[in-house]
């Protein structure tokens, strides 16, 4: 589904991602771990289509098409979803209006009829239950004045509405208490299907107790320095990043 080959990315002349390779197949869950500043969010942004990065080398294929040529909105309509590490506050734009517009633009792109207001509201109620967000939240402006937990739940809620084929969740777990974490993980698990895939970017192995990954990768200074199964996350938690660093150098 997603195939990244030898990707090298820089920002303002500084190389952030160095020759990265990653294969994600339908039905899989991948976890990307790594210390702060290693390039995890940059990788997520490049896949989602943010345009303040320079791709120096390599390619990113999504279902066989060159993703890097597509504007962010087309990627979204093709089924890519980025759960932001820092969801943006947009005063004055209500979540309901935003999501209805987003969903209908996607449907139009896919050749489907737009949802009517009533249909949309019904769908929204369903999804709200699923991610356990209280009803008033969707009336409010996007992320404005939300607590950390509310912001993250709102990301999962948007994901539930848009039903992406490839979801990248950038530290959706950080700053969540255990209950919120369970809600977020529960949402992700409910949305798992054989024909979609999830990449969870996380700092802690904690989330991976709830969202069990098929593959774990460690990103360090722009390289994937180690890949393995879910047990790699546990090992990392125990021994810390220093261990991997030494191991790779050795």
């Amino acid at each position: 589904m997603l195939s990244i080959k030898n990707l090298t990315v820089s920002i303002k002349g500084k190389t952030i991602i160095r020759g990265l390779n990653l294969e994600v197949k339908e039905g899989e869950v991948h976890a990307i771990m790594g210390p702060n500043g290693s390039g995890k969010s940059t990788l997520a942004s490049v896949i989602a289509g943010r345009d303040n990065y320079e791709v120096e080398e390599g390619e990113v294929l999504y279902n066989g098409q060159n993703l890097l040529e597509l504007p962010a909105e087309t990627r979204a309509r093709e089924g890519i979803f980025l759960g932001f590490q820092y969801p943006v506050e947009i005063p004055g734009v209500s979540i309901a209006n935003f999501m209805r517009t987003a969903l209908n633009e996607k449907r139009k792109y896919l050749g489907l009829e737009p949802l009517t207001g009533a249909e949309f509201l019904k769908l929204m109620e369903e999804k709200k239950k699923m991610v356990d967000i209280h009803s008033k939240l969707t009336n409010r402006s996007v992320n404005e004045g939300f607590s950390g937990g509310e912001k993250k739940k709102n990301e999962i809620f948007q994901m539930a509405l848009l039903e992406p084929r490839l979801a990248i969740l950038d530290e959706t777990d950080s700053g969540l208490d255990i209950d919120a974490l369970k809600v977020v993980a529960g949402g992700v698990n409910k949305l798992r299907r054989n024909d979609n895939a999830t990449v969870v970017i996380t700092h802690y192995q904690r989330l991976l107790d709830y969202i069990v990954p098929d593959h774990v990768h460690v990103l360090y200074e722009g390289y994937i320095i180690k890949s393995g199964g879910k047990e790699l996350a546990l090992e990392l938690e125990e021994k810390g990043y220093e261990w991997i660093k030494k191991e790779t150098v050795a």
Partner: protein
Amino acid sequence: MKDTLLDLYRKEQDAIRGKATPLVNRMRDHALSRFRKNGFPSTKKESWRFTDLSPLLNTDFVFDFRNKSKNMDIDKIFTCDVYDLDTFSLTLLNGWYVYKNAPLTRLSNGTIIGSLAKAMEVYPDLVDEYIGKAAKTEAYEMAALNTAFLQDGLFIYVPEGVKVEKPIQLINIVNAEYPVFLQPRHLIVAQKDADLTIVHCDHSLTHNVSFTNTVTEVYAEKGARVDHYKVQNKGRNSALVTNSFFHQKENSHISSNIITLNGGFTKNIVDHTISGSAAHAEHYGLYLVDSNQHVDNQVNIDHATPGSRSDQLFKGILDDEAKAVFSGKVMVRRHSQQTEAHQNNRNILLTDEAKANTQPHLEIYADDVKCSHGATVGQLDPDAMFYLRSRGLCERTARQMMMVAFAGEVVKKISIEALRNRISHLVEKRLKGELSICDQCVLHCNSKEPTAFNIDLSKL
């Protein structure tokens, strides 16, 4: 232009002075000598530094001191079927009050609404008690010019304790085959504990060059409440200068909201004196300008008494080579303790060529006050743009959504729901590039087709 006007005055003074009260004519004489001395404001004056009138004054303007449009059938040129906004609708055509039955109406509750020219004949004492008291012709050149030539406009008098239920809508239409120079004059008085809402719409129906220089005086006595809305949707070739003078006493509340949807050249001057404690003044403004439009909002507020409050919020979106100017001055005098004053101007520039000059300014001589001011000039937040696009919104839709949201903060301040919905719809239309200045009345939208409003969940 100054000499032309002075000559014209000499020739036409009988028509101009007409049936005005002796006091008004004395006021006129003062104003005229001020105009003779000061002329038009030049860019040397701080408050006009970025707004240059001089290129607009080269036209051979036509003046109508005798109400030549009197016999025009207003329904033939302008229909305003406001369908969910129930208002008293009054019309000025080329500066003159247009009426079907009577030029001046006295409602059963004592409210007087109608032509100022007629009011000077029928209620000279009421007019004389207020007119010119707030309009400072010494400090404001354009107000002096208006006063020197004043003939007609709107007169509203709301007696003590009366709440005027329906908003009063004044539609100021410019419709002429030739370049007209108009100077309407409005006088609005809310007596003790009175309550009224005025919606003042400025339109041009033709693309001809025109110049409008309006003075509006608003008086709110103790405990009165006045909501004043201006909706400006003028053609590219029109110049509009509005001079609004507000004077309020104890416990009164004045709220003003100036929405500029289009305008070739617009300068809105607000001068507001608060002379009673526990009074509250609110001034809001929204300007959406493109091509080479120019809009300037100047707001001067004088807290001349302890314990009053003022709030200002002006926001603008500038496209193409449009220019906007904001200058606000809040004066808190030495004895005006416990004043609360907030002032904010925010601009979004959509292009590199658009330009905003903003100068918020507080002049505080008291020490026990709560004041704040701020100004920003920037672009649409790129992080927010990416966030919206990452959910599948195209760039255009994302921009529109952010602009509507930005403008919404000012629109939200409109307290009448029907008017708020109407203006919010117009603003959306404007930001989608679908509002033309030929859409007749801004307060109706030519078609009655239901529009795709955002979902209001509170109503479900």
